[in-house]
């Protein structure tokens, strides 16, 4: 089959590799019909996530048709159309049973690396480094899905692939980010980053009762899409001081909740940004926590700081005094996918949201290496790339 393989920093290529096969009794094999490039894939592309190996198959947002099942797969049947969550969960451990699916104990074959780095290992992910399990990803024509009965979300007939594909990561991720803000109605939510996750966060915040959403970015087309979703917008490159602007817009209170839909590769302006860039370039830090610092400063007293953006290592110059002084609440982590997929599919079926609004590029797998670059550099007004692994380039 054809698959997109990581070869090194800013180097990915489409290669011919073996087809996947059933390796464990609870596995299934999928013929992939649609797959997408995620913002977090760009962290791999830029080489900021350790333990990648040349030859790794990338991709963790995919869906397709089941073509083979292992002996212990009971619920999922051959021929089913399914969406696969990017986290792999066993469904049997303490964490799965308590709805903390992304903390699953039993799916990471390389758990020892995470235990060394973080103390304990969370669930494995598809195509996202060897400390996260080293599973081959879904930017390919076929994929192996471990624990298929737990992971696969069956999709009824009559809904387009494009409407449900994002149940694999970005829609539930945006939704959980908003859910973590514990909205009761009438809140003002500030969201840093209007990439695909940011867009879903904006819409989810409104669904969950936010009265106003303020979206922050610097890319015109992303801000435009945010405004179309009902948000007020700030281009942080055009304002003198983002924190003053937020204070002004919220009547001096500050946002009730701040959401970081950016993560480790924030851009930012000024001295703080330059400091983080140089540290990252010297390889003394993986992360540029510019957004995190701004949120801790901007958030109202007792407010919630919700972090769906990915961080990897040790952060520094974090204003923890501000967080303590204001009694902030922090919520973060990989999305507990399995908890949100079914209810969100329901919302899509009810017509409350059509997630395909975020797609700007529909390409073939062969075009994926260029698409990574386009997406990373935000050229061609690129917001979200969806790949059809079976279509040949024109």
């Amino acid at each position, binding site marked *: *089959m054809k*698959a997109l*393989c*990581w*070869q*090194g920093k800013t180097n990915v*290529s489409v*290669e011919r*590799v*073996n*087809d*996947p*096969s059933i*390796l*464990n*009794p*609870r596995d299934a094999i999928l013929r992939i019909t649609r797959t997408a490039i995620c913002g977090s894939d760009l962290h791999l592309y830029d080489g900021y996530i350790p*333990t990648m*190996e*040349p*030859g*790794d*198959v990338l991709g963790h947002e995919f869906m397709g048709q089941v073509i083979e099942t292992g*002996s*212990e797969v009971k619920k999922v049947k051959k021929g089913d159309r399914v969406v696969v969550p990017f986290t*792999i969960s*066993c*469904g*049997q*451990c*303490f964490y799965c*049973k308590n709805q903390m699916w992304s903390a699953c*104990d*039993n*799916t*990471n*074959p*390389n*758990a*020892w*690396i995470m235990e060394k780095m973080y103390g304990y290992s969370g669930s*494995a992910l598809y195509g996202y480094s*060897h*400390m996260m*399990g*080293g*599973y*081959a990803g879904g930017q*390919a024509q076929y994929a*192996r899905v*471990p*624990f298929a009965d737990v992971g696969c979300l069956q999709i009824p007939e009559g809904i387009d692939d494009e409407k449900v594909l994002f149940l694999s990561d970005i829609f539930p991720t945006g939704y959980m980010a908003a859910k973590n803000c514990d909205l009761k109605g009438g809140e003002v939510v500030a969201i840093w980053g209007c990439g695909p996750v940011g867009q879903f966060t904006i819409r989810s915040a409104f669904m969950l009762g936010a009265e106003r959403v303020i979206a922050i970015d610097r890319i015109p087309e992303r801000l435009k899409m945010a405004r179309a979703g009902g948000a007020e917008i700030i281009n942080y490159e055009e304002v003198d001081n983002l924190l003053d602007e937020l204070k002004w817009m919220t009547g001096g209170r500050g946002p009730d909740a701040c959401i970081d839909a950016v993560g480790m590769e924030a851009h930012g302006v000024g001295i703080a940004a330059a400091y983080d860039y140089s540290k990252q370039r010297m390889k003394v830090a993986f992360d540029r926590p510019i957004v995190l610092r701004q949120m801790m400063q901007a958030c109202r007293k007792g407010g919630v700081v919700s972090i769906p953006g990915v961080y990897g290592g040790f952060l520094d110059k974090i204003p923890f005094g501000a967080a303590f002084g204001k009694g902030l609440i922090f919520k973060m982590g990989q999305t507990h996918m399995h908890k949100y997929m079914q209810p969100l599919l329901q919302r899509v079926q009810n017509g409350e949201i059509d997630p395909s609004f975020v797609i700007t590029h529909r390409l073939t797998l062969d075009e994926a290496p260029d698409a990574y670059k386009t997406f990373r550099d935000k050229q061609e007004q690129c917001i979200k790339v969806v790949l059809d692994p079976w279509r040949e380039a024109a």
Partner: protein
Amino acid sequence: MTITTNLAPKNGEREFSQRPATSTQEAILTLAAGSALAGLGIWRRGWFGTTMGAAGGYLLYCGVRDFHRPYQGRVRVSYTISKDRQEVYDFASNPQNWPKFMHAIQVKNNGDGKFGFSVGEPAGIDFESNVEITDQQSGEHIAWASAEQMLEHRGVVRFKQAPGNRGTEVFVALEYKAPAGPIARALASLVGWGPEQVVRESLRHLKQLMEAGEIPTTKGQPSGARGIRGTAKRIIFREGPSEQAVEQTRMAGD
């Protein structure tokens, strides 16, 4: 919670032998490598030289120390398995199940509570060790001790009800005398044969097998060309140099 391995040498009150763990050859090799590194470090100077000198000094220290005293190590690992205590005990104490979850160890049942454990067979090196169950109480603990001097170890596995109905806490405590010096120990750790790694991964596999019904794996999945860098990384991450599938031990249908 501290666990002593007192239960283990119950049979005949055996204690560890006084034999030095390191063979003379390896001690000489360690000392030679240490002096070479330290010498090179002093000669080169600079940051890199300092690091090399320090590494050489450490090897020299290990070599001298091992002449006098065998390397004795301790391992403590615990995991919680969300199954009843008796169920966990019954599964873990049944020698027929051991090959299903033991990491890097081949088990041979010699009958009468005695077993042959060997490590390293796939690589052509064979450390065999005869193991004897010295004490056992259903649902409580299993203790073992090794019989001969080559690879001495003794330990105990305890089973305890976890709070809040969370299943069973399994504790493994083990003492060992490594038949190797620092270089060989480092190499063993690199391929996942370090005693701590063997115990930790075996216990993890037991948990995965009992909770999820299978041990997660990526062996045999497709990948692009790995190249030299990718292959080297696979060894560092203990995934084995190639991705050939190993026969899975599975609980399903047992």
